[in-house]
């Protein structure tokens, strides 16, 4: 899966599963404030990421994610590691 495909897949489930406004998904926008997830949405997010990319999130890693770009890069790196 190319980096662009990973990004498109992430954007697709953010829109479809979490009802995020597509226009607000910009690489430098703050992730948590923009998608406004509560802790139960995180439960879903963890499952969706694992099902789509085979990546297990860890709390420590996720603390450093600020923007959409950080989130994309994190998933891309983890997908590369798990290949």
């Amino acid at each position, binding site marked *: 899966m190319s980096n662009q495909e990973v990004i498109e897949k992430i954007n697709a489930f953010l829109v479809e599963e979490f009802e995020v406004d597509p226009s607000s998904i910009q690489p430098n926008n703050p992730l948590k404030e923009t998608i406004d997830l*509560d*802790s*139960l949405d*995180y*439960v*879903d997010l*963890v*499952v969706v990421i694992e099902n789509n990319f085979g990546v*297990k*999130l*860890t*709390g420590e890693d*996720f*603390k450093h994610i600020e923007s959409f770009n950080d989130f994309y890069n994190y998933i891309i790196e983890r997908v590369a590691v798990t290949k």
Partner: protein
Amino acid sequence: MSEWKGRTRGNLLGYKIFVLFIRYFGLRVAYALLRVVSLYFYLFAFKPRGVMIQFYNEHMGYNYFRSRFLTRINFYKIGQTLVDRFAFMVGRADILEYTFDGHQYLKQIADGNKGGMLISAHLGNWEIAGNMMKEKGLTKRSNIVMFDGEHEQIKKYMQKESGGPSFNVIPIKNDLSHIIGIKQALERGEFICIHADRFLPGSRTITLNFLGKPARFPYGPFHIASKYNAPVTFVFSVKQADYLYELSATVPMDGMQKPEVYAQAFVTILEEKLKAYPDQWFNYFDFFKMEDVA
């Protein structure tokens, strides 16, 4: 039920006195002291007393005098659960005995590889169950998901006296950490123990019929059970007599059912337990309040 603020009651001196009594004089003497202390709270803790009398009278259908009596017993019983907890921590709980209904269900979950969600309520004494499960050979690590509401001084003191609790605590925080912690524990095949009768303002809730009236319950425990595909059992540990506990676990429900299914099953069991042990209901706030406090 949104008035609960996530803090426990009691002060450090009180805890120290009880630990001293348990350590040097045993549980019987500690219970005798508790009769006096619980009477003091019954006389002067106006708000929780009023809430409990109203709960028994209006929601459980007891007459006013019976409701007052149950409230008096309730204050003593919650004291006993705390004293018993200290007794376990300082190794003086050998006098306590218990029966275990549904031990095989917990064993069945422990032998699987998906972990298990053990859902309970503030009815009886869950921490005692944790200790007794270990004595019954259920050595699978237990993780208790809880609001970290105990006073820091008391926590440090109990840590010093006992070396800390015999289970892992996953504190509920405003970040992702407890969600990840729960997921990782289930992946290791461990037990997740969580109460499903309290929530903090702003949390997602589910409204269900409880004792004939709508009441709000936290959505989180049932949502997590549903999404993380872990078997679910409802576990209670109630006092049958001063030195006898009854532990119970229900037939496990398979994972991946809708959260609403788990929630309804939980409320059904909770009502049964509450009717059998009304004096061990330890929620001292208006359980039927529908709106959050700003």
